[in-house]
């Protein structure tokens, strides 16, 4: 990078830009996992990559984490090039991988200690930090237990605590709540929400639309390696969906006989294998018309639109197959 360009990237308005990707591409042999995506991530925001498994979210995250070389395009993290300054970038990141990779054989607090040592932190500086993080992760009374004795939710919280040991400027969370029960998920969301309020910049990949809605200020929807939409959860729903959705289920074998008769009942009709979705801004009116036309569904539910509906609209498929 030329000195002038570097000065420009690290000063002025771009000061707040933590990640900048242009035409970012990742190929594995003939397979294109990430296909020329552009995005900017600013300090203090919670940025999401929403998409189904195999959309290219993890590959993107690994490139940002400076552990996967880019195939083409341009990527800057903290204004630095991951190919040249990988170690410098990683020194300022916290990483929560999809699968926990804690050291199972050693106690909870030592996991934090050794991880801090990899960042070159002194023990005297680490112990008070470890106390804080154990309290944050609600693991203070489990500190001397081996990691293998912890529950899935506890391991996840420990992994997040470990990622915070170096007080990172940017926290990368790859599918942070996959595999957790609802209670553990909500506790984890609460912790992430606290971090957000403290001003920690978060990047989250997820295939759960509720997670993206809860946590992300801004997100991109990914499918087959490409970004298909970008914006805040609210704006995406407004742009790509209606206010309300009527979900209609029929008894087994009936849907096939009636599914071509819903035209004109709503702004958009989506036929899924197990249900029919009516997209409308007036739910009561749509329900009334369904009854008026003499359909006899097993159940009908009026709900508000979610990012799931956005994804369905954009790709014609569900987020979770």
């Amino acid at each position, binding site marked *: 990078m030329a000195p002038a360009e570097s000065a420009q990237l690290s000063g002025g308005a771009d000061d707040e830009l933590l990640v900048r990707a242009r035409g970012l591409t990742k190929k594995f042999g003939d397979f294109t996992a990430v296909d020329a995506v552009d995005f900017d991530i600013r300090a203090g925001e919670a940025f999401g990559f929403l998409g189904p498994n195999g959309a290219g979210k993890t590959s993107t995250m690994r490139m940002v984490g400076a552990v996967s*070389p880019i195939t083409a395009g341009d990527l800057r993290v903290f204004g630095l090039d991951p190919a040249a300054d990988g170690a410098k970038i990683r020194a300022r990141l916290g990483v929560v991988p999809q699968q926990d990779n804690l050291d199972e054989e050693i106690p909870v607090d030592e996991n934090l200690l050794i991880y801090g040592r*990899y960042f070159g932190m002194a023990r005297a500086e680490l112990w008070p930090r470890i106390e804080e993080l154990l309290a944050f992760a609600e693991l203070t009374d489990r500190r001397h237990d081996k990691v293998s004795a912890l529950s899935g939710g506890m391991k996840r919280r420990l992994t997040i605590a470990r990622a915070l040991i170096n007080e990172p400027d940017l926290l990368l969370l790859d599918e942070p709540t996959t595999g957790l029960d609802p209670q553990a998920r909500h506790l984890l969301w609460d912790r992430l929400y606290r971090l957000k309020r403290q001003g920690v910049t978060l990047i989250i990949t997820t295939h759960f639309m509720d997670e993206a809605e809860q946590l992300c200020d801004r997100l991109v929807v990914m499918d087959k390696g490409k970004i298909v939409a970008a914006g805040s959860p609210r704006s995406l729903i407004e742009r790509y969906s209606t206010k309300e959705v009527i979900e209609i289920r029929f008894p087994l074998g009936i849907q096939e006989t009636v599914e071509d008769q819903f035209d004109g009942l709503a702004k958009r009709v989506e036929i899924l294998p197990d249900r029919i979705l009516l997209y409308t801004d007036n739910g009561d009116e749509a329900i009334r018309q369904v009854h008026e036309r003499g359909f006899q569904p097993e159940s009908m539910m009026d709900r508000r639109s979610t990012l799931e509906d956005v994804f369905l609209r954009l790709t014609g498929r569900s987020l979770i197959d």
Partner: protein
Amino acid sequence: MAATETLRVVETHARAYKRIWRGSVISTFLNPVLYLAAMGVGLGVLVDEGSGRDALVGLDYLTFLAPGLLAASAMSTGAMDGSWPVMAGIRWQRHYEAILSTPVAVRDLVAGHLLWVAVRLLMMSTIFSFVMVLFGATGVIEAGRALLPAIVTGMAFAAPVTAFTARSEDHVGLTNLFRFGIVPMFLFSGTFFPISQLPGWMQPVAQITPLWHGVEMTRAWALGLTPTFEPGLHIGYLVLWTVAGWIAANRLLEKRMIK
């Protein structure tokens, strides 16, 4: 390779070892005691009373066996430490992935890992040498001289086996490495009998194995004998395996982890 990052990797290994050191020291001590008692003393009596002495250039069997077994144990430690813990780091526990998310790079990880294996080899060889002296196989000073070739022997296996593990999919490759590589070497590279006892065509094969060079040097320096070739040649051959293995381990682990 950054020296501080490398030392941090060593520190982690040491911290994990602190939890198991008692068991490790006891088994490192018991292993040579059992082998030397059974084979050196028990079997050795039969060898010494038979026609063994001529082939053993006048040594009694215990004396012949002990330094050979030191080199073979170093091989075993090096190969073990280069295989299962590395596979655990890559795949089973995946903590290599966690380490590589920090400023530590693959070359630091490999260097730290190998440096730790060297420390383990030093501990293991020191305990083994102490047992050799206890059994009267050699003197204290000679036993001390045997440490260097023993450690280099261990490293000549640790580094290439680490490289091999970095490109092995799972435990199957490692099991085969031990089954078809390490165990035959253990038996036929001059540890238990001189390779002059092997059929003629097998002798050059044995001389290619790094273990034979390790056994030859360790035995020579532990007993004050002259090795088959120049000491520099034997040691150099082992260093060559170490360096080649180290370079390969860097490349292959980079390929495996950074994709």
